[in-house]
């Protein structure tokens, strides 16, 4: 028996078999590692796709809020431009009509009247905006409007909102806060016509003061499944709903 062990016959075969085994183990380790890399890449890819899908809902929400700001500005501009502010029988969307027109009438010169119109434009806008934003919480779930008086005596209108996806994996939500910007108009009155020029440098109707995204960890499968690594995952539908 000892004679057989000490014999060197067949040693080369043993070496070749061992080498092959080692190479096979290396090969399997490499396949496992690269498979894990591929799964990570696919997870990252899916995460990015889902994130941008959720941004569609967030940006649509911002555009919806901007529509309300636009509506308010056009209402107030029309109120001024048409001279409705001077019309005692005005019956339009501007809520506090009498207060403004009474104040205008008591001004003793066209210069003062122009200044009065310039000064009250932001007030009319903010009051009208508060009215137009009434009920937004019902229209856009997860939206909260807060109106605070700032040091200049004007109102600061802040709108907080959030959207979330309903996927089981990659669950995330985007929350944002935007502040309504008061349009800056310089208004002039010549005794007959009211004209106004907007400061275009601050033409944006809102400024985003906060915008962030939170997420839950990706749900990993606990069991290892050996599938075909070359099989392409099914394409995500183009209009996957990602909504509140």
């Amino acid at each position: 028996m000892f004679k057989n062990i000490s014999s060197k016959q067949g040693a080369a075969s043993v070496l070749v078999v061992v080498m092959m085994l080692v190479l096979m183990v290396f090969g399997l380790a490499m396949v496992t590692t690269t498979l894990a890399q591929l799964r990570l890449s696919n997870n990252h890819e899916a995460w990015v796709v889902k994130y941008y899908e959720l941004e569609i809902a967030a940006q649509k929400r911002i555009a919806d809020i901007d529509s309300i700001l636009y509506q308010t500005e056009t209402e107030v501009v029309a109120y001024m431009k048409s001279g409705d502010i001077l019309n005692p029988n005005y019956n339009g969307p501007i809520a506090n009509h009498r207060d403004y027109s009474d104040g205008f009438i008591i001004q003793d010169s066209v210069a003062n009247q122009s200044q009065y119109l310039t000064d009250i434009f932001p007030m009319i806008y903010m009051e009208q905006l508060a009215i137009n934003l009434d009920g937004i919480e019902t229209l856009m779930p997860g939206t909260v409007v807060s109106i605070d008086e700032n040091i200049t005596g004007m109102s600061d209108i802040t709108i907080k909102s959030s959207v979330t996806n309903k996927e089981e994996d990659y669950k995330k939500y985007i929350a944002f806060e935007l502040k309504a910007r008061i349009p800056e108009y310089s208004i002039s009155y010549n005794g007959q016509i009211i004209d106004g020029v907007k400061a275009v440098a601050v033409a944006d109707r809102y400024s985003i003061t906060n915008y962030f995204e939170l997420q839950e960890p990706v749900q990993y499968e606990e069991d290892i499944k050996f599938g075909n690594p070359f099989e392409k995952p099914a394409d995500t539908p183009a209009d996957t709903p990602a909504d509140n």
Partner: protein
Amino acid sequence: MKILSSDKGFTLIEMILSIMILAIVSGVVIQLFVVSQDLGDRAKEADYATFTASNAMEVVKSVDDPGTIMNHEFFREADVVDGDVILLQLFYDEDYQVTTKANASYILSVYITEQEAYTKSLDARFDAEGQVVESSLCDIRVTYYKLEEEDSLLTIQSSSHYYTYVR
């Protein structure tokens, strides 16, 4: 048995058999390395697709006016088709470097479409002679293709709300 136990040498059949076994085992080992290389390439391709597409998306979202996107450094070498939709195409070679259409292995396409229902125009002056401020919601679609493959490697879609100044 006598021949097998003899230490004079190997027969042809023994040689053929052992070479066959070695070839089969080596084939499996080589296959493992090839599969591994292929998987690694696919992972790299998926990563490049994701990073390139999301970089393009962020650039489109960052500009003030999507109509001027072709002036951005990222799209400096892009082919531009500006019609109802803004379509930009960037070409990448097999090393993921920007190249010409002729040498391209990958194509990055960016489509920007305006949602008309959300387009709001407001004249900056009461008498309608001033600058028009326009706000719009645009849909953005970024697709990363491999030239020889029919399906895209990656498609990401998003939207962005813009303010632009006309006139």
